[in-house]
């Protein structure tokens, strides 16, 4: 009985897969923390014959090479991928055997130039599933603009034909198993269903229901920004990344953390925004342990930096370490557990005032800057009448546009990005107030908010 097990990584919006026949297994697009894959293999007593990558990933560091080496499995990618290590190079149409399973490589460029999809069949020739990586996603497609602006138009057109090729060459009953599309910025839009088949995609996938021109127009119009750390993932994956090492970094005391902060180190404080705002060390960046932590930190923390993690307990620190290692931030200098009151009275101790929008009432406009850090698509649906708009991900490059000498009142849609941005602004030498409130598309413009186009 052939089965496909899905491993979810909600913090990146990605899925990995283990296909097996009860004794042999094929692993597709494993994340860096392969202990999760090994657990599945051990529980079921499976031997891995092949570790397959649909493409050289742009949004995470792969665990594929490390897993293949650890299990003596074949590590396979497109033969045209330029990698710094030996691997099994596949060509369009190549067939692999693993126990009762058959896997056929299909060249499906679009998300990347050398992207492969893998059709999983039984020995009788029934297609059971297709691992589509960043090509055919649930009701959408993988974005074509991650390789570089010079390639985007060409890759977008290829993507359209690749999705059509999958639909033409894979049997209707086959389950679609994409890697992206579950919150990942690699997806053009987000999936709205938990599973799909080739038959269902025939009526749901824009590449299958629209003309090529309509498809391309919509695709280009919908592309949102993606995290700056993405540019480091391709080179990291081509170099052959080591396995995730869950060993905690050294535990630092307060003096050590303060000394590092004074040297400009990036200290990531994982406590919730209210505890952070009540007492923190100037220069620390506040990023709560949420699914979006890697994306949001990957936008503002320089990739080469050695980080210090601060959190409430060892569990939070371990989870953050894992989330960050998945995107290659594994240069951790140390960690510190911050009990309540740890920073009280210290000369670097700071606080941030936390208010709702009504906190702005009565503050003279000349005394404040209101900073909206939402994406442009959100901003245009309505914003504070005096807002200076700098999307969150542009803040590191554009922080100097924020006038000095006035308090900066920061908001986003839910408070999550504003929280990180507020601590980043303190680090950049500003006096800030965090507006921990909601400003969602469609919120009725009132006294403080103005509508689209205003």
């Amino acid at each position, binding site marked *: 009985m052939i089965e496909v097990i899905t491993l979810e990584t909600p913090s990146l919006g990605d899925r990995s897969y283990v296909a097996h026949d009860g004794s042999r297994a094929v692993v597709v697009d494993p994340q860096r923390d392969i202990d999760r894959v090994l657990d599945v293999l051990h529980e079921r007593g499976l031997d891995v014959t092949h570790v397959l990558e649909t493409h050289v990933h742009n949004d995470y560091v792969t665990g594929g090479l490390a897993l293949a080496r650890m299990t003596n499995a074949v590590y396979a990618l497109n033969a045209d991928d330029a990698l710094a290590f030996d691997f099994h190079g596949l060509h369009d149409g190549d067939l692999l055997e693993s126990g009762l399973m058959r896997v056929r490589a299909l060249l499906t460029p679009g998300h990347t130039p050398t992207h492969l999809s893998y059709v999983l069949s039984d020995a009788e020739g029934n297609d059971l599933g297709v691992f589509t990586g960043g090509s055919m996603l649930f009701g959408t497609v993988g974005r074509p603009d991650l390789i570089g602006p010079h390639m985007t138009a060409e890759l977008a057109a290829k993507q359209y034909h690749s999705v059509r090729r999958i639909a033409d060459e894979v049997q209707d009953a086959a389950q679609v198993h994409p890697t992206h599309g579950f919150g990942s910025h690699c997806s053009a839009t987000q999936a709205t269903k938990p599973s799909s088949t080739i038959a269902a995609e025939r009526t749901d996938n824009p590449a299958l229901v629209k003309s090529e021109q309509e498809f391309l127009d919509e695709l280009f119009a919908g592309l949102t920004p993606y995290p700056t750390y993405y540019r480091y993932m391709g080179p990291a994956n081509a170099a052959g990344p080591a396995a995730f090492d869950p060993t905690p970094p050294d535990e630092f005391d307060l003096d050590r953390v303060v000394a590092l902060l004074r040297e400009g180190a990036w200290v990531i404080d994982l406590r919730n925004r209210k505890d952070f705002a009540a007492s923190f060390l100037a220069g620390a960046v506040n990023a709560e342990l949420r699914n*979006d932590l890697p994306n949001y930190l990957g936008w503002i923390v320089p990739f080469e930096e050695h980080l210090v993690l601060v959190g409430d307990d060892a569990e939070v620190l371990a989870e953050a370490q894992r989330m960050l290692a998945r995107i290659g931030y594994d240069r951790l200098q140390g960690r510190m557990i911050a009990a309540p009151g740890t920073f009280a009275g210290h000369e670097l101790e700071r606080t941030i005032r936390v208010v709702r929008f009504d906190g702005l009432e009565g503050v003279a406009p000349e005394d404040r800057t209101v900073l909206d850090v939402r994406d442009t698509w959100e901003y245009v649906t309505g914003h504070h009448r005096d807002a200076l708009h700098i999307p969150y991900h542009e803040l590191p490059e554009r922080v100097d546009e924020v006038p000095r000498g006035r308090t900066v009142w920061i908001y986003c849609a839910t408070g999550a990005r504003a929280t990180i941005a507020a601590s980043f602004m303190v680090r950049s030498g500003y006096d800030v107030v965090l507006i921990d409130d*909601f400003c969602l598309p469609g919120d009725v413009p009132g006294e403080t908010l103005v509508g689209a186009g205003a």
Partner: protein
Amino acid sequence: MSDVAKTLDASGLACPMPVVRTRQAIDQIESGQILEVISTDRGSLQDIPAWAESTGNELVEKEDAGDRFTFRIRKA
């Protein structure tokens, strides 16, 4: 639950979309009816209760299944 008037599956969506969709969905039910929201974004554990409170809607139930979160909100 029998008195859920509408279910919104926001699985796979990242911040701010679970709250954005919740806000849209609540406009489609009547006062007193219950909206059920399913999310896989851990941030929702914080955002959805806070949003309900700030808008005067009542969070009647919150389930945390580790990687899947369910909320039931009674529209004000």
